[in-house]
């Protein structure tokens, strides 16, 4: 493919401004959150006293918990930018443009968008730093010097975002290159195999056994480090199990669907359980964190009589709240970007539905249901998963410190509320697309 064709492919089409803005915003949010999280956590590594390792270990857990879903959101942003070109590229592929040409055009475009988004993300991070610096740990504010990252680390994060964009674009385009007609006609249905459930249950069982054993054989810090690994494994399990559960439940909902919006919602989830999971997986993480960490903080409050331990418990609560806020921001960004991009992708279809006389509210209900139903299932499911992992401790926390339960309920409610609000926020966009003649 020559550079003239490449330039033609990269040129945005008319009315594509919103389609460019969405992945750009998503890449920006990812960059800001990654820099903020790493920036906030780095100050813990400047401490050298005997409590420092505990804080560092806890920060490591928070990083694992936040960075994994952040990467997932970054992947969603990259896929979004690639999908923007899916149909046009499929057509070009059908017309004979080589796979290498299609891939090169999309990767370059994704990286360019990611670059602009990441630059905006760095600026937002710098602007937000004075506020992050006010967060208190160990009785005093972190301070601006503590949360600002050196330029080398900032550059590495930006480079990581660009790499993620390039990699996701290549992976996302594989199906266009392999089956251009499938993408053009949207005939590709993603399937989720039952083996996911077997693997997930196996990993959960091993994780439960390890957690039961470790507290008695290892020191406190070692336990936390091991727990961080287990958290990451549990998140991986959730990601493995989530799409399969969504497929099973949506199949059952499809069988029972009597109303058009329920039929549409169930089919939307079944069309790509993985895509449905990617949108709401962040809430599963938040729910998981809420049960896990909420239990820990509650128990520490009860047991920690010494001043240092009381301080640690208070700081853990602060860390938990920050982690949860980060999770909610990711989910809100993910749902908002995906919903808006779907509306823009399906403008022609929505216009035709309006011509057919389909009420806007019916489409809105179907879209909301396609998000909220998997969300409720995963939020409750992941809370149960975490509950299984810390079962004895949670039982104790429920008796001695019921605020643990309140934290869980508050987190799940807030998460569901924020996603519901995000689906509301895209209604005007849908209404505009619906009413255009």
């Amino acid at each position, binding site marked *: 493919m020559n550079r003239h064709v490449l330039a033609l492919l990269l040129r945005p089409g008319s009315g594509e401004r919103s389609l460019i803005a969405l992945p750009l915003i998503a890449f920006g949010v990812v960059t800001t959150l990654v820099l903020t999280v790493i920036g906030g956590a780095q100050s813990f590594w400047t401490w050298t006293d005997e409590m420092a390792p505990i804080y560092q270990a806890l920060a490591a857990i928070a990083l694992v918990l936040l960075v994994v879903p952040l990467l997932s959101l970054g992947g969603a942003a990259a896929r979004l930018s690639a999908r923007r070109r899916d149909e046009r590229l499929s057509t070009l592929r059908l017309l004979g443009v080589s796979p290498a040409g299609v891939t090169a055009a999309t990767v370059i475009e994704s990286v360019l968008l990611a670059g602009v988004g990441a630059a905006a993300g760095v600026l937002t991070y710098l602007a937000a730093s004075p506020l992050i610096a006010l967060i208190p740990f160990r009785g005093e504010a972190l301070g601006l010097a503590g949360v600002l990252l050196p330029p080398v680390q900032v550059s590495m994060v930006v480079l990581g975002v660009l790499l993620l964009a390039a990699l996701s674009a290549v992976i996302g385009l594989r199906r266009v290159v392999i089956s251009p007609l499938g993408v053009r006609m949207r005939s590709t249905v993603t399937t989720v195999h039952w083996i996911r459930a077997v693997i997930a249950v196996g990993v959960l069982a091993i994780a439960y056994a390890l957690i039961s054993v470790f507290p008695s054989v290892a020191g406190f810090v070692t336990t936390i480090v091991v727990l961080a690994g287990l958290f990451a494994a549990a998140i991986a399990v959730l990601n493995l199990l989530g799409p399969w559960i969504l497929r099973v439940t949506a199949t059952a909902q499809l069988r029972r669907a009597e*109303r058009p919006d329920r*039929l549409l919602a169930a089919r939307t989830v079944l069309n790509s359980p993985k895509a449905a999971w990617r949108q709401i997986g962040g809430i599963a993480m938040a729910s998981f964190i809420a049960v896990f960490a909420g239990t820990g903080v509650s128990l520490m409050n009860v047991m920690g009589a010494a001043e240092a331990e009381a301080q640690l418990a208070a700081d853990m609560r602060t860390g938990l709240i920050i982690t949860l806020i980060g999770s909610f921001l990711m989910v809100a960004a993910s749902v908002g970007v995906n919903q808006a991009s779907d509306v823009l992708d399906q403008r022609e279809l929505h216009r*035709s539905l309006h011509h*057919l*006389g389909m009420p806007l509210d019916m489409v809105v209900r179907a879209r909301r249901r396609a998000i909220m139903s998997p969300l409720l299932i995963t939020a409750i499911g992941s809370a149960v998963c975490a509950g299984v992992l810390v079962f004895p401790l949670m039982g104790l926390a429920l008796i001695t410190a019921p605020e643990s339960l309140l934290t869980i309920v508050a987190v799940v409610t807030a998460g569901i509320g924020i996603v519901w609000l995000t689906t509301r926020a895209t209604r005007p966009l849908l209404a505009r697309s619906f009413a255009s003649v």
Partner: protein
Amino acid sequence: MNSHVIEAHALTKSFGPTRALAGVDLAIARGESVAIMGASGSGKTTLLHVLAGITTPDTGSVVFHPAQGSPIEVTALAEAGRSRLRRERFGFVFQQGLLIPELTAVENVALASMINGVRRKDAVQHAASWLAALGLAGMEDRRIGELSGGQAQRVAIARAQATGAELVFADEPTGALDSQTSAEVMDALLWSTTGQGRTLIVVTHDADVAARCSRTIAVRDGRIVSSAVAA
């Protein structure tokens, strides 16, 4: 019962400085198949949209005469009323089918009836019978992307008929098809509409499509310049 299914009087419509309709009078008889032809920008699609209640004219009126019940002044209805009229009384076939890709063929057809309150089981049964009548038996559970262009267009025709629409509007229904498939789709469209005593209004660029209709109306600069009944 009025012999006309739809009547339009003195329709005008402008989009900014562009005058799309410049005083259109039209009456279409029950059971007719009418082709509206004209160059791009002549106003033919705007005319179809105004007749169907998708767009409101700046001036003039459109009256729909259902087979049973009182005449309905389409242009006097609010958006909600026009939407209801479209989903309950009219059928639509678009150039690219514009079916819902997530749903199967039979679900796409059944959805139109389900929106009007028909039970899913009955709607699916009725939809399957329309698909079979249009030569798509055995393809009910295929997703739209798994159908050819002609098959998808026949699903769209079945959808337009599933609610028992008296009047079907088709906007370039064969525009994306080869000549043989185009002829097959027109066979299906005419059989399912005028063949059942219903009325068809088609906007088309294709003279072969127009030749299959009982009347051809030519539109130029927002006006009807000729109306020729087929021999």
